[in-house]
């Protein structure tokens, strides 16, 4: 007979064979996002019991009426591209998962399509006139969207891809690391105030806890790409910055423009000097304001540089 207060045996598992695993930071971010969407819980003491009873009657009536006339949850159409797709639509809140042999196409309202590659898990989060939003938990998607900027968003464990009118591929692995490749237009990768603007022909890596790295073009020198990776996610420091500056071509001012606001203040002069070596400072862009990271100045400079990208 076991005593209720007795502690059960551990069985054949020895200590350390099921180590404690650290919860990824992405969980708190998704909780925060959910909290920001939900109203704060109300204190029960604000309501007296009779108010609760009256409110309950009203709620039951309202729920009944709503149930009878409820609209369907918004959904998007799903079609099979390869393999065995078992669903024909995805509703808000639902997940779609492809196996190793399946590809599917989601029709994003009337603004575009998302192709879902094999071994991908994706959820429809919002399908309203003001927000079309997916969550990519793992795998790869290709999105082609024709819509006003910031209407179509894809959350990944490491950042949010904000469509600025474009076509792109985004991939994320089990650990949450991801890479974005833009094929037309622009995409903004965002995480906690950190933003990378990625034009067609460029890529951007992203990591949980750090957010988007520095964008770079497909044809950027290999050494530059590696140095950017060390600069963004490793402990590249001085050495990687030196390589980035030395390897950068005119087109790579895309990367340098992003690096400028991410280096230590003492290194900004080196970055600005290198950018000016590659492309003379345009009229209307003041060097001292660029060094102070004045947002309007940086924006004007980026718009001028973009002609070379």
């Amino acid at each position, binding site marked *: 007979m076991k005593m209720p207060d007795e502690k*059960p045996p551990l069985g*054949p598992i020895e200590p*350390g064979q*099921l180590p*404690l695993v*650290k919860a990824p930071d992405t969980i708190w971010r998704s*909780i925060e996002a959910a909290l920001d969407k939900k109203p704060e*819980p109300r204190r029960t003491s604000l309501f007296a019991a009779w108010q609760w009873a009256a409110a309950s009657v009203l709620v039951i009536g309202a729920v009944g009426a709503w149930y009878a006339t409820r609209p369907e949850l918004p959904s998007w159409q799903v079609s099979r591209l390869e393999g065995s797709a078992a669903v024909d639509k995805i509703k808000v809140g639902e997940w779609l998962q492809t196996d190793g042999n399946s590809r599917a196409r989601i029709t994003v309202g009337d603004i575009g399509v998302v192709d879902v590659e094999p071994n991908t898990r994706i959820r429809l989060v919002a399908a309203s006139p003001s927000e079309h939003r997916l969550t990519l938990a793992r795998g790869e998607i290709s999105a082609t969207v024709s819509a006003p900027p910031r209407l179509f968003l894809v959350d990944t464990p490491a950042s949010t891809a904000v469509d600025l009118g474009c076509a792109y591929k985004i991939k994320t692995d089990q650990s949450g690391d991801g890479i974005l490749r833009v094929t037309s237009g622009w995409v903004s990768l965002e995480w906690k105030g950190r933003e990378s603007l990625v034009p067609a022909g460029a890529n951007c890596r992203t990591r949980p806890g750090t957010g988007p790295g520095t964008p770079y073009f497909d044809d950027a020198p290999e050494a530059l790409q590696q140095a950017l990776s060390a600069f963004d996610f490793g402990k590249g420091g001085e050495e990687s910055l030196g390589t980035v500056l030395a390897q950068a071509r005119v087109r790579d001012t895309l990367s340098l423009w992003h690096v400028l606001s991410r280096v230590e203040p003492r290194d900004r002069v080196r970055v600005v000097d290198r950018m000016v070596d590659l492309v003379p400072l345009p009229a209307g862009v003041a060097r001292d304001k660029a060094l102070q990271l004045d947002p309007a100045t940086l924006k004007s400079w980026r718009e001028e540089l973009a002609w070379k990208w």
Partner: protein
Amino acid sequence: MRTSDIRRHINLKKSGRWAVQGNGANLSDPEINEIVEGCRRGDREAFRAIYEAYKDKVYSIALYFFHGDQTEAGDATQQVFLKLLTSIGSFRGDSEFSTWLHRLVVNTCLDGSRRSKSRERFAEPEEMARIADPASQGEDMERQEVAGRVQAALASLPPKLRMPVVLRHFEELSYAEMGEALQCSAGTVASRLNKGHKMLAEKLAKLREVATRR
């Protein structure tokens, strides 16, 4: 206690019930009550403090329950804490806070398991070891292999037997407390654990045999 002190307070606590393996917080009942009260008021700091204290334990239980599927475990952890916040008003302090939280974890995992039954998969021992202990790659291959076998054997148990085994491993709960979390009697807990441990021992013996033959 001011809510601004809560996080500092938790950071100071590094051992105890929720800290069997060096994680979490050993909070006294009055401290828990303060934090729970903060959560009831909708205080985000208090909620964060609870999350920080228990997140790794909740995530680990979910991860081993869901065969090492990090996405499922992440989803379940998120749901547990969102449910905690919305139902904290129903925690009256009759049982310990940790027992109440275990119940949320158990319900969320079992619900998730029912929903994803069709696509349940079984991780390979090597995969489980990599997920559970990514930092130790190449450090102690033998230990890692054994741990991988244990985790894969655990993953193959039916959910009803798997949950008590995982819960028991992570928490020093009595039969009665486990019964409360699993919503069954102490006798049922004893029977499920006994059955689970037996099946686990058999599967481990088989896996060990396969490994020695390689």
